């Protein structure tokens, strides 16, 4: 067999493992596989059972895996997360859902005071292998409490890990990975990206920890996560028209943050803009800017810029295009960095 034929066959074999899925379908498939392979897993939340979730993420799972493993809960997030604590203590691997980001607030006590520190409090005898799925961020014209960005809140709590996938491939693999961890993981699903399809290679996850370069570039690094990654990729294409070669770094893990990936990328490009939907003040962009400054202070061409939501409550759907960083606001952030001259 010639070398090229072998290469073609290998490419073919890989293609069979690669399927085009929306993030919605990728998450559904991941949950199905987790339930099939780990008998200790239970999936539950408001409308997760019979209805299959308001975003169809748990569609068909109750019919397949039974009402004792995939079930509906009352409309009480403190109960959903409180029950998760008990289930985890009893040896289960709960994958609860809070239906929307803003509904996590009533469960903050259970998340912060119990889930995050039970392992610490019990000297390692009561780990909390809980993966909390939170449909997150804005962009779908939903009412109040349905478009919040809670990553800085969760990342601030010792004992929690926080991750947000930006495409179907990462959504599929990161959910399976998160569910296999002994620690609690807040899994932030960018709900405005639920419907866009992408290639999911089910056989080759690639690295599951740390950040990921989604577009290499030489002049400036855009740091983003969740739904902002796709927007930053659009911005990078537009910047290329103006001769600016932008690197896009998908942070993925928001706790712990991959400081090494930030140092490597910005060490090369010497300019950075961090983009997030959450409000500016005490947002995760500040943490990212500090990590970059710490490692790249001597070579940075300009202070790290932040392009973010505003310090106001998340607005109604009619105004969210003004709130979420848009292409022009990100381009202006890039321009400010490019223009900066040391005084």
């Amino acid at each position, binding site marked *: 067999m010639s070398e090229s034929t072998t290469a073609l066959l290998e490419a073919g074999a890989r293609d069979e493992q690669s399927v085009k899925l*929306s993030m*919605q*379908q990728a998450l559904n498939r991941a949950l199905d596989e987790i339930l099939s392979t780990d008998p200790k897993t239970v999936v539950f939340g408001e*409308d997760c059972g*019979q209805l*299959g*979730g*308001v*975003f*169809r993420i748990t*569609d068909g799972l109750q019919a397949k895996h039974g009402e004792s493993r995939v079930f509906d809960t009352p409309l009480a997030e403190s109960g959903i997360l409180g029950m998760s604590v008990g289930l985890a203590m009893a040896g289960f691997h709960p994958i609860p859902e809070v239906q*929307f980001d803003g509904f996590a607030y009533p469960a903050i006590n259970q998340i912060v005071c119990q889930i995050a520190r039970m392992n610490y409090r019990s000297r390692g005898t009561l780990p909390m292998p809980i993966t909390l799925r939170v449909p997150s961020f804005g*962009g*779908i*014209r*939903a*009412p109040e409490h*349905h478009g919040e960005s809670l990553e800085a809140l969760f990342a601030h709590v010792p004992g929690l890990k926080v991750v947000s996938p930006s495409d179907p491939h990462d959504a599929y693999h990161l959910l399976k990975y998160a569910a296999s961890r002994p620690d609690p993981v807040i899994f932030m699903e960018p*709900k*405005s990206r*639920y*419907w*866009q399809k992408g290639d999911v290679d089910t056989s080759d996850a690639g690295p599951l920890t740390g950040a990921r370069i989604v577009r290499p570039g030489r*002049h400036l690094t855009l740091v983003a996560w969740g739904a902002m990654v796709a927007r930053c990729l*659009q*911005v990078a*294409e*537009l*910047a290329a028209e*103006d*001769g*600016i070669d932008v690197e896009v770094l998908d942070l993925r893990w928001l706790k712990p943050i991959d400081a090494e990936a930030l140092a490597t990328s910005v060490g090369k490009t010497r300019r950075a803009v961090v983009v997030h939907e959450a409000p500016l003040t005490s947002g995760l962009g500040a943490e990212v800017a500090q990590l970059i400054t710490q490692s790249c202070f001597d070579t940075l061409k300009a202070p790290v810029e932040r392009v973010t939501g505003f310090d106001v409550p998340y607005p109604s*759907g009619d105004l969210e295009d003004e709130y979420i960083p848009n*292409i*022009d606001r990100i*381009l*202006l952030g*890039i*321009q400010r960095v*490019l*223009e900066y001259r040391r005084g």
Partner: protein
Amino acid sequence: MAEISFPLPDLGEGLIEATVLDWLVSPGDQVERNQPLVELETSKSALELPSPQAGKVIRIHGAPGETINVGEPLVVFEVPDNTAGIVGTVPKDDAPKRRVRLSAVLDED
């Protein structure tokens, strides 16, 4: 395409079942939200049940005269995979629009 099952909803007043009087739609019909689906009779009254959503009807349960319990399947819809959740809309992936242009002299030192 995805299938969504619509079970007989709780009709209130402690009713636990209803009898099908007449179907107003057939499998294959494309229905709009709030379009009447079926005439039902309970021990209290006769009523028309509106559709909870738009979609294509692919199965109906219960012939006229048959009784269905609350929570049992009534209608199964077929909807496109990219149908929005119950809250919100599916964002459009429009071609990116820009007004800002970048200008920079990059000193490659």
